[in-house]
């Protein structure tokens, strides 16, 4: 008999524990960040839950944005979708068209929670807003593309960090002249940097209808813009030995090639700033600058990358209230500072950025240099061609671009032919997307 007491006690305890947590109203939150970033994100849930006695976020991580979106769709169709979904830009066109979400600005207003939306950087909030300016999803982990350079190499070659692509080419040549065996530019085809960021910075569109904001009968135009010249230059740099292809398949990603002191330059997300600090070989002197522009062009703002938080439709009012509380928690300067200092992401509100700057966050390593991303993102007010991209089938379009650029880099065709094919195929995808949602318009 005695033996069963501990078991009984444990059972009773477990019962108490479940009733205690059952008092809290739970809502599901699915996210796509994995690895270290996923762990940090899970920590925001813990911090929220610890601060709450009424609501509890049940957070589930997936291995990548594609996977979390795909799982959320499957769950949604079965009526078991999460309340909050972390989704990336390219994956949200379908969600926008379906209308199966609760616009976050409306939700906060419905629950009477004051958020100063003007406090958000326009370059970030515009990206996640409807064409009329209503914020659909909550800006969260945000980044933009920057250029990383090896300071020691530039010093040895006697050149300053480049601000134009012409200067960049001259710098590559100077580096090559000072050390012929050196890899100048670690290049990895990235549609996000080479096309989307590049086009925004030069204020050229990638598609008609102001990058898709003004209608569904959109076609791509990036085979006729400055983008072609840029890609041809990259290809030329590779044939001249100034740049080298560094991808996972070639054994070393561009980021690793930079961190391991193999190459002088590399372009990447500001979110990699912390990764480089972790991976850099001993004594690597490096810094970041804004992506260069071509001479004769005025610089415009770059666009935001990363992901935002969507609230899906069909949940109960309690769950929405919980989600709203969570958003409110995230929107505090304190949460934002915690998130920014524990990851490589940038602050999304002006006040958090100002506070961080005032506290000297950006003055010293390891955070010094990250302010360059803010400078790039806020360089100008976002205009019709720099507020973002509202295009269907964007994931497949990105894949088409990548395959075609790879074909050109492998010498199977010229860059112009490759981009022509990519545009032609992407237009087919857009047409199919428009047909799938016949009679509807992007919000």
């Amino acid at each position, binding site marked *: 008999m005695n033996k069963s007491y501990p078991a009984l006690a444990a059972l009773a305890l477990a019962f108490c524990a479940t009733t205690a947590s059952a008092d809290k109203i739970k809502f599901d939150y699915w996210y796509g960040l994995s690895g270290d970033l996923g762990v940090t994100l899970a920590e925001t849930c813990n911090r929220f839950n610890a601060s709450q006695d009424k609501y509890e976020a049940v957070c589930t991580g997936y291995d990548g944005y594609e996977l979390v979106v795909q799982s959320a769709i499957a769950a949604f169709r079965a009526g078991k979708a999460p309340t909050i979904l972390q989704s990336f830009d390219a994956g949200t066109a*379908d969600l926008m068209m379906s209308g199966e979400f609760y616009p976050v600005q409306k939700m906060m207003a419905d629950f009477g929670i004051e958020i100063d939306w003007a406090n958000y950087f326009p370059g970030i909030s515009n990206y996640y807003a409807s064409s009329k300016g209503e914020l659909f999803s909550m800006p969260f982990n945000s980044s933009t593309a920057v250029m990383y350079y090896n300071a020691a190499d530039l010093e040895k070659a006697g050149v300053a960090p480049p601000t134009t692509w012409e200067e960049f080419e001259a710098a590559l040549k100077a580096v090559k002249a000072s050390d012929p065996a050196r890899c100048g530019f670690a290049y990895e085809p990235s549609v996000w940097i080479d096309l989307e960021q590049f086009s925004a910075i030069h204020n050229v569109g990638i598609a008609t209808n102001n990058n898709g904001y003004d209608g569904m009968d959109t076609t791509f135009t990036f085979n006729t813009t400055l983008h072609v010249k840029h890609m041809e230059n990259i290809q030329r740099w590779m044939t001249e030995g100034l740049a080298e292809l560094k991808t996972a398949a070639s054994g070393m990603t561009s980021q690793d090639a930079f961190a391991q002191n193999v190459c002088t330059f590399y372009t990447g997300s500001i979110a990699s700033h912390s990764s480089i600090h972790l991976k850099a070989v001993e004594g690597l002197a490096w810094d970041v600058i804004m992506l260069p522009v071509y001479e004769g062009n005025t610089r415009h703002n770059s666009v935001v990358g990363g992901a935002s938080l969507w609230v899906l439709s069909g949940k109960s009012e309690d769950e929405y209230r919980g989600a709203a509380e969570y958003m409110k928690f995230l929107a505090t300067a304190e949460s934002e500072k915690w998130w920014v200092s524990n990851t490589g992401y940038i602050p999304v509100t002006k006040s958090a950025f100002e506070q961080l700057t005032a506290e000297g966050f950006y003055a010293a390593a390891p955070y010094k240099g990250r302010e360059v991303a803010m400078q790039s993102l806020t360089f100008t007010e976002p205009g019709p061609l720099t507020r973002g991209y509202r295009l269907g*089938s964007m994931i497949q379009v990105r894949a088409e671009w990548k395959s075609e650029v790879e074909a050109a880099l492998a010498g199977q065709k010229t860059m112009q032919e490759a981009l022509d094919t990519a545009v032609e195929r992407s237009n087919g995808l857009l047409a199919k997307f428009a047909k799938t949602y016949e009679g509807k318009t992007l919000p």
Partner: protein
Amino acid sequence: MRRAYFKNNWVSALMVAPQLLIIFIFFYWPTSQAMYWAFTLEQPWGGGNTWVGFDNFRDILSDSLYWYSIQVSVVYALGSTVLAVGMAIILAVFVDRQMRGFKAYKIGLIWPYAIAAPAVGLAFRFIFNPTAGIMLYVNHVFPGVWDPSTSGNDAMIMVIVAGAWKQVAYNFIFFLAGLQSIPRSLLEAGAIDGARALRRMRDIQLPLLAPTFFFVLVINITDSFTDSFGIVDTMTGGGPARATNLMVFKIFNDGFQGLDYSGAAAQSIILMFLVVALTFVQFRYIERKVHYT
């Protein structure tokens, strides 16, 4: 030949019911759903679909790059099957001849089949890395000879080797069992007549292995069309320039990543019919040459 019948049909129905239920849930139901989607444009988040008839199939079959995907799938299927079957026969013959340490080999050779495809992919990505390991030496001696990041052929060789390596183990088990079921007396009779090991293998063992060979061939071809996803995903991601964009990988990319459910469904149906057709051809033309003992 004597045959056993169940007198009570209800009992037999009850016996097969669980299996039928599983096949229905995991095969017929999804297949019928895919069939339906293939003829519509399905919105991923629900909200309806439009019937478009054969439009999806027309789009896919008029796409030259889809035919390219079929082409690379066939190359992969043939390459990995020839390699996996060939290696497995050689290894099985060696083990069957009870060469020194064959027991350890036997276990070691069965092992790879239990390894998940992505793990195989990761391991081989490391082995075939052009800037580290053995391939670095090869590249050092013959500069630029190996680079799967730009050469489609190299990338294809890489996935074929990895796919075959995983499949060798499975084939090996069947070949070994096949070899061991050949009566020793036949081999001994051959030996007494003066046939050496190679001759005995060619004239006695291989012909008697034909039914096993046929089974393994069908399974390998089917498997290479439908189960190559994990390896491609971890090793090449379909690249470079679509050189390893196998049909099954393209389905995953379009459907699960690109959210083009209808296009992916139509591709699945095409893949299914292709595999059915190939299996039919094998049964029709190759099985004729097989003598079951």
